[in-house]
């Protein structure tokens, strides 16, 4: 048995955990890639990342400075940016705090420790960002990535496989799928950018695996197939949807409140597994990826709705939902 409100918090804790991990990884990849290039190029690359992560509105609102590392700081340590790493970590902590009584003590302690570390790094960085050449944000990225890995490990090894775990895992996998699709879209090369398949694979933590499967200089279509359809890659959308479907089946057996999202996850998984995806991606990749993004957002909305459908409307804490993200509780 799980409270509707707790289910919602677990779902969002999972989403924010994945979001913090992915953004930290992307920033790390991006900064390493341009480390030996002029600072202006670093800034341009970071701007592309802002777009890929769907944070343009927040970027404009934050009135980010013109320094070469200002964009990186915006993505990593800016608390006014609800999509930054530090904000996402804080949201993981806040959501887990709500369910503190039902999760393993170690999971809460890891989340709390990561939050404290990120906050102390932020305090240092506030006066010295430009002077340190983005070093504080770089260190924060390393801290966040380690912390997220640790949280994932504790989650996997010590959590009871109950409804709470199922919602948390569904949240993570849906966020991962959504971000993978968004990053793939950004890699289409619009705006005159040159497609860099390796960077895209590194963003999604798939580079090492891809080298064995599709070589060192893959074309966009090969990267897209790999990230969308690979059955054994935990970062691929197909793999994620297969797990989402399983978790929703578990939930249906326990609670029976997730029939709609379960059907939708199944249909979407089948489309990726058996549909004519190659042809669709070749003919209109942007449209197909947009369609996929919309379907994932709808699925996320359905899952969120299922947390309250069993018992009527319940007040849930406002969460940050990026454009096209789904969720139903946008602030």
């Amino acid at each position, binding site marked *: *048995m*799980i*409270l*509707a*409100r*707790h*289910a919602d918090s677990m779902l969002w804790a999972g989403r924010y955990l994945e979001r913090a991990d992915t953004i930290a990884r992307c920033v790390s990849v991006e900064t390493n890639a341009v480390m030996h290039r002029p600072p202006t190029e670093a800034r341009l690359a970071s701007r592309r990342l802002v777009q890929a992560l769907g944070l343009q509105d927040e970027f404009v609102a934050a009135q980010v400075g013109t320094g070469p590392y200002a964009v990186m700081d915006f993505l990593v340590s800016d608390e006014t940016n609800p999509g930054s790493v530090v904000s996402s970590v804080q949201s993981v902590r*806040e959501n887990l*705090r*709500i369910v*503190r*009584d*039902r999760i393993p*003590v170690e999971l*809460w*302690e890891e989340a*709390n*420790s990561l939050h*404290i570390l990120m906050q102390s790094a932020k305090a240092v960085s506030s006066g010295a960002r430009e002077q340190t050449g983005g070093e504080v944000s770089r260190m924060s990225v390393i801290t966040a990535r380690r912390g997220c890995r640790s949280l994932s490990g504790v989650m996997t090894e010590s959590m009871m496989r109950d*409804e709470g775990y199922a919602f948390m895992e569904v949240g993570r996998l849906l966020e991962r799928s959504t971000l993978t699709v968004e990053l793939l879209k950004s890699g289409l090369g619009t705006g005159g950018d040159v497609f860099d398949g390796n960077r895209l694979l590194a963003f999604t933590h798939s580079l090492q695996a891809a080298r064995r499967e599709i070589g060192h200089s893959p074309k966009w279509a090969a990267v897209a197939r790999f990230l969308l359809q690979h059955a054994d890659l935990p970062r691929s959308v197909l793999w994620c949807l297969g797990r989402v479907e399983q978790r929703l089946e578990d*939930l249906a057996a*326990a*609670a*029976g*409140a*997730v029939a709609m999202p379960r059907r939708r996850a199944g249909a979407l998984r089948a489309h990726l597994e058996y549909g004519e995806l190659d042809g669709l991606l070749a003919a209109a990749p942007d449209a197909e990826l947009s369609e996929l993004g919309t379907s994932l957002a709808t699925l996320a909305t359905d899952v969120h709705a*299922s*947390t*309250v*459908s*069993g*018992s*009527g409307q*319940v*007040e849930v804490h406002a969460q940050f939902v990026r454009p096209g993200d789904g969720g139903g509780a946008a602030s």
Partner: protein
Amino acid sequence: MADFRRPDAEFAAYDEAFDRDGSVRPLYAAIVDRFSNFDAAELRRREGIIEEEFRRQGITFTVYGDSQGTERTWPMDLFPRLITAAEWREIERGLAQRVTALNRFLADVYTGEGAAMADGVVPAWLVQSSDGFERNAFGISVPHDAHCVIAGIDLVRDAQGQYRVLEDNLRNPSGISYVIENRAAMTRAFPLVWEDHTVEPVSQYGRMLRTALESVAPAGSGDKPLIVILTPGIYNSAYFEHAFLAREMGVELVEGPDLVVDEHVVYLRTIEGLVPVDVIYRRIDDTFLDPVSFRPDSTLGVPGLLGAIRAGTVTVANAVGNGVADDKAIHPYVTDLIRYYLGEEPILGNVETYVMWEPDQRAAAFERLDELVIKPVGESGGYGIVIGRDATEEELANARAEIEADPRNWVVQEVVELSTLASMCDDVLEPRHLDLRPFVITGERTQVFPGGLTRVAMRKGSLIVNSSQGGGSKDTWVLAPGTNSGAAELAGEPSMDAAGQESAR
């Protein structure tokens, strides 16, 4: 070597660890010896371990309106408080006696004949004018008459070393989670100090409380009643404790909107649908409990909850209306209530208290207000207290005027020179004043949890121990019978005595 500062010879307070001549009391000999082997840097290092551990675990409390931020790490002093087995036996008996009488009083007020009022033990007008007196609770009975399932009784030790009751907390006493976390922290930071002592464990609280809550479930709840803890939410000062207790008991931690009442039955909103609830351990005040019956603007409570309680489909612990029994104005009468209901002499005496609505007592108190402690009956957490000897003439004049304007709202107590115990202050272990809040659990029977929360005023000379006002805490050891240090109780420690000086007739 750690530097233990002995209490000043002219100091009036009883020191727990050192005798008047500066020699170590036998009870504390082993622990003082242990600590003497640590130098200040080592003690600071261990202090750091505890603080870091509390911070990492998020063992916090909230100070409302605090400019430093909402969450503050729980403050714990390194040097533990020790209580002998024999001392504890007496405290235990005294507390069980007191809480039993208070539960009888609550049953008398709300479901009985009001006998204590009719027989003049407590003035009826005083009961009816109490802020904690709740007319809505009339006629609502509680299984086993356990109106107060969880009580926290604040004890102090006077200059002679006698334990006395300073206050009763019968609504939502907090602090038990810190008792358990203090012990865990002490175990981590000083793994070897346990070699010299056998100490009563404190890890059983969750089981004890759950058993008590199960025992007050409404008839027909089945073998495994559904228990929940109702919290105001993550911004409440004691949220850590609420989550801690839910985890320790293995029950759901819910907020008002998680519950709904339909046809006088309380349900939990789950993803499976609505599930009926049997027992609610509420950690919100009466006035916020049900917007239909109490404050209509409350968003923390559950509309219709009082109707469900009255229908007997759910038990709420602690019961509605307990505030009448822990009203500071009722406190002076509790020893008489013990005699009245139980026919026994009180084992624990009150701190001597004067009631301001009695003209003689008021006049006597006004003559030496600068020697007394002035307390508003409606405040808690140490707020609103005026300590006469520290107050200016203007503050005393204001207090006099306020008492005269509303005598019902004030009590005046003799200053109790709270006992002191060595506490870590700027690299030395100096005597600081402390109190003790033991917890008493009532279900089918009344049990006293070993030890309790020792709160310590970290400022030199201060008598205010509340954590919201800069107080700290200490791990509290009740020694097991027959241990080496436990035997020290036979070597001249003061024993419990019958009730001290009561007043307010």
